[in-house]
Every structure is written in structure tokens, then in C-alpha cells.
């Protein structure tokens, strides 16, 4: 099957390459409904549904559903990159750089630095101890009920906020790119992700993410080559021209030559993104430590056979994600140079036509015409699908594996029933995602991704680290301490400017910083530590006594569960 998939991927790329060539001389008017984009996206959907069909025939056991029967570290690294690089970062970071210059790179670096932490602290132990979900590891030596319940609840919270942000983003994006109504877009995204996960499980999800990662990296690379060709393949020239463009824009707005020059130069250094150091560090810590607590990312480690491949997965994921963010940086500056004075892309006031996130889309049109714009639009849509499919699978696993099979059935669930529960959950989640997408259509959802990271950093991350590395951690400490971290992160976010002022409309935020992580992550760790120390229950003795055996297995991989290969 793998060869067929590679062939299909190659076909898609060839189709794209010839299309881009033809489009260089293409028409410039943009239809209200973008048929090129819709057809290209239909091609992507066709390929992925065909893969899902092939995967469905091989998804018979719960292990197939949760792990997809095993892939290599390289494939998993690409899938992780596909899971992690959201449309929000592709469109958002490039547009941020288009507007303010350098600041977008600070954001991008924050998303990358979490990966070494995952690698150094959790990856190999996670792979050695777990089977399907990170809760397998967090609850390894503890009483299953409390720790699994905490993990599942935490997973649902993290996934929900991440998912709402993706669904609302998808609806708005598709409205802009494809000229389709918001509701259609939400239903298409929700429906497709349901089909992928329902029938193809992890196998289909992995391949959707791999294909999307390849499309995204190839598309962005092509755009970067277009930008660099425009400036004679010199970064210095790219930056100099971008500064000249911003200086001219500032001069045209009526500034004195000296002020205009200063404003132009400002894009080369950090601007308003980082205001106070506490907010900056706090936000940075949420991104850095949150990655190591994201359930849909952690779940991907169980698709590879051993710790060795798990480490390779991260190295490849880091390579592709780092490369992707380097590309977005060039694309943002390329957009400044290539689209700033074109009335087709930017209105008289200097704002992007079609909404604030459209910089890279206009750049795609400027470089490769309508067909390439269609391709990049299809990539953006595919990106959203790949991300939401991973989220849905992880939430469905939390319900079926952690809650149903482990807590309700106490580990004695009939596998066929567990599989059925995970599929029913997938359908319910798909419907819930569509409803949430509609409910939150008009709301400000920008804070939800960073909230998801803060929750993961304050709940899941401390529980995982303490259960893996501290022999004194007990059931009570992990379950309640994790919950305290989670609630602290959530409470502080509600009291912070993004919700207290922007959503509730109060005049003054009680918690003045933009991210809670700097306080809520230590709260989680300290709570686990103190509650475990005070825990004198008989269970606490069993928990502590179980550490030696857990440690040995986590270090050596003895008794590791490999994804079933058929």
C-alpha cells in the first residue's frame, strides 16, 4: 500500500508542477468561487479517501485503530510535522511578518523549542512504557481510575480548545479562499475528518498528515524559490528591499524622511510582540513545555516500534518544522517586497485585501498565478484537515481506551466493543466539532491555541515528568496535582486580558500577563510534589514500590508494546 501512496503523492506533485508553469502567464482576475482551488482540493480529498479506504480494510483491531500498524521514524517525523504545522502558523506567521517584520520569527521559534524538551525528557520513556495513549504512561504504576480520568479530561480540554480554533479558522479561511459559505466549510471539514478517523483510524490519519506535510513543504519551498529569484538569491537584498518598501510606505503616509527610515528599519528588529518580559517568558514556556503535553502529539509515538525510532521521529519532525518556519520567515519578507504596492493585493490604506491573514496567498498568486494560488489554498485546507483528524483521533482514544476500556471496564473490555466505542465517539466528536465551529463563529478564538498549550504544559507535562522521573509520586499526587495545574492555567487565563477584558468586557484584568504558564506550570509541579509527600494512604506505598520496575522498563524497553504488524 505504501508504494501506491508514494505514487499518488508523486502524481499530485507532477500535476502541481506543470500547473504552476502554465499559470505563469495566466489570467489575474479572481473568481468569487475559486474553482481551481476547489478542484485541487478535491484531488487531495480523493487521494486521502482512497488511502482511507485502503486503511479501513486493514483496520480491524483496536491496535490498528490507535497505532495504524506501525510506521518508521522518518514517516512519523513527517506526520508529526503535518500534525503540528497548522494553517494558522502558515498564514498567521507570514502575515505577521508582512505587517511587523521580525516578530513573527519569535513566535515561530517558540513553537520549535518544545521539540528538544519532548526528546530529552519524555519520548523514549513514553515509547517504552505506553501502548496507545499518554495516559498509559502517566498511569503506569498508579491506580488506573483517578490518573486515567485526569488524563482523559485533560485531553478533552486541550483538544477542544485546539479544535475550536482550527474549526473557526477553517471556516473563515475557506470562506476567503474558496468563496464557499462558512457553514459549508465547517461541515466539509467536520465530515471529512470524521470519515478519515472513523474508517481509517491512525493509519489514514498518519498518511493524511504525511501527504499534507509534503504538499506544504513543497509548496512553501517553491514560493521561497520564487521570492529568492526575484531578489537575485541574496538574503541581504531581500531584507534591504523590504526595508526600502516599508520606508517608502511610511514616507507616503506623511512621515518625515528620518522617521520613515526608522520605521522601515524597524522590521529588522523585535517590535511590539514582546512588551513585558514576564508575559514573553510565560508565553515562551507555554509553547516550550506544552508541546511535551499535547495528547495528539504524544499519541504519535506509539506508531513507531521502539525508542530508537521514537527519537528519530523527533529529529525528523524538528528538521521539517524548523525548515518550515525558516521558509515562513522568507515568505513574510518576500510578501513585503512583492505585493506591497499592488492594488490587487493591498488596498489604499495598506491593509491586505481579503483579511489580515492573506499575505502568503497573495504572494502565491503573485509568483505562480491562479493555479498556484489554487494549489496553496488546497494545501491550507488539507493542513486544517490533517490537524483536526489527529485531534479527533486523540480525543476518541481518550474516551474509548482511557475511560471506557480502562476505567469503566477496568482493563477487561472486549476489543470489538472498545473499537465500537472509539468509532461512536469519533462520530459524536465530529458532530460536536461542527456545532462548536458554528457556535464560536463570531467569537475571538485567537487565544485558544495558546490556552491549549498552557493547559498541556500545566497539567499533562508535570504529571508525565513526575510519574516518569520521581519515585515518590503517588496516585493522589498525580491526579490531584495535575488537576490543580490544569485549573490554575485555566483560571489565570480567564482572569487575564484576553478573556477578562476582551471577552467579558471588564475594564481591568486581574491577572495582567498574556499567558499563565510561568505560574501554572510550577503550580502543577509543586501540587504533585506536596500532595504526594502528604499522601500516607496504603495505595501510596504501592505506587512508590512500583517505581523500580517502571524505571527499568522505561530505560531498557523490556516488554515494550509494538504496534501490531500484519
Amino acid at each position, binding site marked *: 500500500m505504501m508504494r501506491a501512496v508514494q505514487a499518488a503523492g508523486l502524481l499530485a506533485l507532477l500535476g502541481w508542477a506543470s500547473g504552476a508553469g502554465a499559470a505563469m502567464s495566466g489570467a489575474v482576475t479572481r473568481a468569487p468561487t475559486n474553482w481551481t482551488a476547489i478542484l485541487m482540493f478535491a484531488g487531495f480529498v480523493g487521494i486521502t479517501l482512497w488511502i482511507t479506504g485502503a486503511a479501513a480494510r486493514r483496520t480491524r483491531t483496536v491496535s490498528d485503530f490507535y497505532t495504524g500498524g506501525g510506521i518508521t521514524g522518518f514517516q512519523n517525523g513527517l506526520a508529526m510535522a503535518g500534525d503540528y504545522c497548522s494553517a494558522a502558523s502558515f498564514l498567521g506567521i507570514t502575515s505577521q511578518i508582512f505587517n511587523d517584520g*521580525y516578530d513573527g520569527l519569535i513566535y515561530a521559534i517558540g513553537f520549535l*523549542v518544545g521539540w528538544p524538551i519532548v526528546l530529552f525528557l519524555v519520548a523514549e520513556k513514553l515509547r517504552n512504557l505506553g501502548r496507545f495513549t499518554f495516559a498509559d504512561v502517566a498511569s503506569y504504576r498508579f491506580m488506573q481510575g483517578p490518573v486515567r480520568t485526569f488524563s482523559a479530561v485533560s485531553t478533552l480540554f486541550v483538544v477542544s480548545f485546539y479544535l475550536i480554533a482550527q474549526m473557526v479558522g477553517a471556516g473563515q479561511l475557506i470562506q476567503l479562499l474558496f468563496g464557499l459559505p462558512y457553514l459549508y466549510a465547517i461541515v466539509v471539514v467536520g465530515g471529512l475528518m470524521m470519515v478519515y478517523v472513523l474508517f481509517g483510524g491512525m493509519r489514514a490519519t498518519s498518511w493524511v498528515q504525511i501527504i499534507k506535510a509534503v504538499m506544504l513543504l513543497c509548496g512553501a519551498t517553491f514560493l521561497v524559490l520564487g521570492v529568492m529569484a526575484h531578489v537575485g538569491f541574496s538574503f541581504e537584498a531581500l531584507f534591504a528591499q523590504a526595508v526600502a518598501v516599508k520606508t517608502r510606505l511610511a514616507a507616503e503616509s506623511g512621515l518625515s524622511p528620518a522617521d520613515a527610515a526608522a520605521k522601515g528599519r524597524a522590521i529588522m528588529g523585535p517590535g511590539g510582540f514582546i512588551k513585558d518580559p514576564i508575559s514573553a517568558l510565560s508565553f515562551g514556556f507555554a509553547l516550550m513545555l506544552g508541546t511535551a503535553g499535547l495528547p495528539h502529539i504524544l499519541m504519535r509515538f506509539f506508531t513507531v516500534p521502539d525508542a530508537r525510532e521514537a527519537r528519530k521521529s523527533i529529529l525528523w519532525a524538528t528538521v521539517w518544522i524548523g525548515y518550515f518556519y525558516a521558509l515562513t520567515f522568507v515568505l513574510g519578507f518576500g510578501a513585503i517586497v512583492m505585493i506591497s504596492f499592488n492594488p490587487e493585493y493591498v488596498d489604499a490604506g495598506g491593509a491586505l485585501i481579503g483579511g489580515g491573514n492573506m499575505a502568503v496567498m497573495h504572494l502565491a498568486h503573485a509568483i505562480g498565478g491562479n493555479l498556484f494560488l489554487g494549489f496553496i489554498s488546497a494545501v491550507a485546507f488539507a493542513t486544517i484537515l490533517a490537524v483536526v483528524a489527529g485531534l479527533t483521533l486523540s480525543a476518541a482514544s481518550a474516551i474509548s481506551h482511557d475511560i471506557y476500556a480502562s476505567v469503566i471496564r477496568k482493563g477487561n473490555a472486549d476489543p470489538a466493543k472498545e473499537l465500537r466505542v472509539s468509532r461512536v465517539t469519533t462520530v459524536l466528536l465530529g458532530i460536536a466539532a461542527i456545532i462548536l465551529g458554528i457556535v464560536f463563529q463570531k467569537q475571538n478564538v485567537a487565544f485558544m491555541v495558546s490556552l491549549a498549550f498552557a493547559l498541556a504544559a500545566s497539567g499533562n507535562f508535570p504529571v508525565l515528568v513526575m510519574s516518569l522521573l520521581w519515585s515518590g509520586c503517588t496516585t493522589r499526587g498525580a491526579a490531584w496535582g495535575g488537576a490543580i495545574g490544569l485549573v490554575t492555567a485555566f483560571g489565570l487565563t480567564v482572569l487575564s486580558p484576553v478573556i477578562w477584558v476582551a471577552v467579558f468586557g471588564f475594564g481591568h484584568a486581574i491577572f495582567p500577563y498574556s499567558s499563565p504558564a510561568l505560574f501554572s506550570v510550577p503550580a502543577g509541579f509543586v501540587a504533585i510534589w506536596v500532595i504526594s509527600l502528604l499522601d500516607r494512604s496504603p495505595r501510596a506505598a504501592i505506587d512508590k514500590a512500583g517505581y523500580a520496575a517502571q524505571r527499568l522498563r522505561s530505560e531498557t524497553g523490556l516488554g515494550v508494546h509494538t504496534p501490531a504488524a500484519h
Partner: protein
Amino acid sequence: MPPDHDRALEARIAADPRYIALVRDRQHFSWVLTAITVIVYSSFISLIAFDKPLMARPIAGGTTSIAVVAGVAMLIGTVAICAIYVRRANGSYDARLAELLASARS
């Protein structure tokens, strides 16, 4: 419990000085790299928060600024530190582990 649960084997490994040394070395290495990651990233953010004009200063009389070089170095350094860990963990640490497991099983 997983099927191949072998208490005697596990006890043999746990008591093996080579196992104890391996776990100590690997743990030490991963904590050192974690500390480097956290310190370098926090310094990068703090530098931006406390001294923006320094970061905006151009290098070598051109347009490219210190901030751009530092940012790109952060991206490359992040990949590099992962590569350093994976190289050693999949290389010498895994070789020591394989040798240890082989002799414990014989």
C-alpha cells in the same frame, strides 16, 4: 502486565553496574541538554525583552540585523541539539544497552 514479564531477568539487569552507569550517563546527558535548551531560549527571549535596540542593530554595515542572525541560529541550534542527542542515544547508549541485554539474557 505485558507477556514477557521476567522478574529474574529484570532483577539481574537492575543490579548490573553497566545498567546503573548507562542510566546515570543518559540521564545526565539529557538533563544537561534540557538545561542548555531552556537557558538559551530564555536568554533569547530576555534579550529581546530587555534590549531591543541591540537586537535591531545591523551587522557588517548591511541590512541584516543581529536579531535575524540570532533567530536563524535558534532554529538551526534547536535542530542541532536534537541531532546531538539522537546521535549519541541511538549510537553509543543503544549499543551499551544491547550489549547489556544480550549478556543478561544469556
